[in-house]
């Protein structure tokens, strides 16, 4: 590792740097959303950008999620490259008409004539005692929709690197930033790095079990892998990075190697992305599995406010480790 060439920064800074870089490179790019300007972003992500780029490129919108998301679609179709920020996924439900009924399907309905090169960023996830209306993880739900691409950067490198290829993509891309990750620090190659928005990545190698996860789940899974390692169980951790389209190849390769799979997702299990993953693994690798696929997901409750209740509702490293220890053929 060439420490010299690396720079420490927070996930928040990484997102900001990515946006700044894009706006400097291409003046078709602009940022629009609630409180992105004067306030500096509800999570402080765009702090300083209004001063740097001016109010024509960092646009504070009224609280009209449907209106400004749709305006982003129109601007994209009219030749611009907007980054629409929706404060959190919870409020994106008010824009879901525009995302699902418009952005996702213009290309198809027009027989290939009109693509929508739009990027929508939003914060997602729970764990901050914000109760049921502010703590959802609905990225898996958007991943249900053909026509959308769904990215879930979990590292500083991805937070920095995924935006530009998302802007280059001719189709609508949703980027989900887990709120807990904004303060997370990591190392960033000096010149930024080129990452793709199509593959999953193995973040930890291991021979005994594959933990398949994304977003905040990556960090909890890595912690679980640490716990397991002390007991002699080597977990491989696969960071999905992209929820749509799923990178089957990387997932199957890992599970073929370990013969055990556990999926970690803060989202709900019923009908969620974890169900899809479990199904794909079972369909493809049934005879290679040493034991049934396991899932550690968010409890099927609206997020509770009280800390102990909320924490109990979320996947935790201990729970992940415990689940794995119970899996067939493994001994701790």
């Amino acid at each position, binding site marked *: 590792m060439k420490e010299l060439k690396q720079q420490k920064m927070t996930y928040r800074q990484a997102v900001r740097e990515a946006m700044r870089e894009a706006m400097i490179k291409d003046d078709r790019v602009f940022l629009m959303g609630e409180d992105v300007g004067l306030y500096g972003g509800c999570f402080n992500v765009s702090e300083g950008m209004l001063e740097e780029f001016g109010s024509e490129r960092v646009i504070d919108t009224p609280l009209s999620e449907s209106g400004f998301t*749709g305006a982003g679609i129109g601007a994209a179709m009219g030749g611009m490259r907007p980054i629409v920020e929706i404060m959190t996924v919870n409020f994106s439900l008010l824009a879901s008409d525009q995302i699902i009924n418009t952005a996702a399907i213009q290309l198809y309905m027009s*027989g290939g004539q009109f693509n929508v090169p739009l990027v929508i960023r939003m914060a997602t996830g729970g764990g901050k005692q914000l109760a049921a209306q502010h703590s959802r993880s609905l990225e898996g739900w958007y991943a249900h929709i053909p026509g959308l691409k769904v990215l879930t950067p979990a590292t500083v490198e991805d937070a920095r690197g995924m935006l530009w290829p998302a802007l280059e993509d001719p189709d609508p891309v949703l980027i989900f930033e887990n709120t807990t990750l904004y303060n997370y620090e990591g190392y960033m190659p000096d010149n930024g790095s080129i990452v793709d928005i199509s593959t999953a990545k193995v973040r930890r190698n291991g021979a005994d079990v594959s933990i398949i996860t994304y977003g905040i789940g990556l960090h909890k899974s890595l912690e679980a892998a640490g716990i397991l390692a002390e007991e002699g169980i080597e977990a491989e951790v696969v960071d999905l990075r992209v929820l749509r389209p799923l990178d089957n190849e990387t997932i199957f390769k890992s599970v073929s190697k370990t013969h055990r799979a556990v999926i970690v997702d803060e989202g709900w299990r019923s009908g969620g992305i974890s169900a899809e993953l479990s199904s794909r693994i079972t369909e493809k690798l049934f005879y290679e599995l040493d034991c049934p696929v396991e899932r550690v997901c968010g409890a099927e409750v609206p997020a509770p406010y009280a800390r102990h209740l909320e924490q109990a509702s979320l996947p935790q490293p201990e729970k992940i480790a415990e689940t794995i220890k119970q899996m067939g053929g493994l001994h701790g």
Partner: protein
Amino acid sequence: MGNYRMGTPKKTASKKTTEKKAVSAKPGKSEKIHLLTQMIRIRQMEEKTYEMYTKEKIRGFLHLYDGEEAVAVGIIENLDKEDGIVSTYREHGHALIAGMSMNSIMAELYGKAEGCSGGRGGSMHLYDKKTNFFGGSAIVANGLPMAVGLAMAYKMQNRNSISCCFFGDGAVDEGEFHESMNLASLWNLPVLFVCENNFYSMGMPFELAQAETDLVKKANAYKIEGAAVDGMDVMAVYDASVKAINYIREQKKPWFLECQTYRFRAHSMFDPERYREKDEVKEWKKRDPITTFTSRLQEEGLLDEDELNEIKKRVAEEVEESVEFSEKGTDEPIENLTRFVYSDEPKTLNKSK
């Protein structure tokens, strides 16, 4: 999915300003006859689609525009080629007047590969890149935010184009209408909002849906100037749109136009029309935009019977040809089912001009 690249980043999002001429409020004989012809084209095309629906050549939802022709013609005839149009599921007329060929429209209704969207959109989703026709949306009011965004792009690129958005009275009930009006006004965007008030949203009478039925007042509440016109009178719509379009281009602000009109046919092909009296329809038919304008031109001595018959004959031929074209159309191969879910080739479509 191919790996599309934006290419060399654009440092300047086109600063070329195309000069748009102010549209003229004084159409002469040939322009007036053209307006009539355009309305007849819509009417005859719609009657044919009705017929072909009953013959099961066209399926799904079909929303006809009979009675409302003066709105599409009176407005779109004054738009520039570069102006964007956003419409609804009742958009055959808008698409035709925007410059799409009747063949590509009819073939789309037939669900053929030769249709404008290769049979993926159907009646409610006509699109055409060449004429800047950004489609029909079948979600009520869902096109308004797109029109706002197109206008944003035009403004950011210093183009003098405007976006023109058609929607029904039902759209006024929706939040997207109000959000869009506010955004367009707040940001001084060149949007022409055209409400085609035909006094029903499916079976819901307008006055039972809106507490304030004066729509211009609503526009004014968003600090948008506007007017209400007789949407059965093509010249009234034409004059109102000349004023509106000139205002938008000069003032760089939105304008709201309510066109009061009436649909002669049922909402769609599945509508038993329990909500309105036959007499009401009969009364409105006396104000048929085509027959009234025809009489006016005849009274003014601008049109004789032979000329009128000639127009109708020519249009009938165009309609027949579109049917033949569609009958001969081919089916999009099933192998192409998943084509265009994502872009699979570099697109230059959206590059700023």
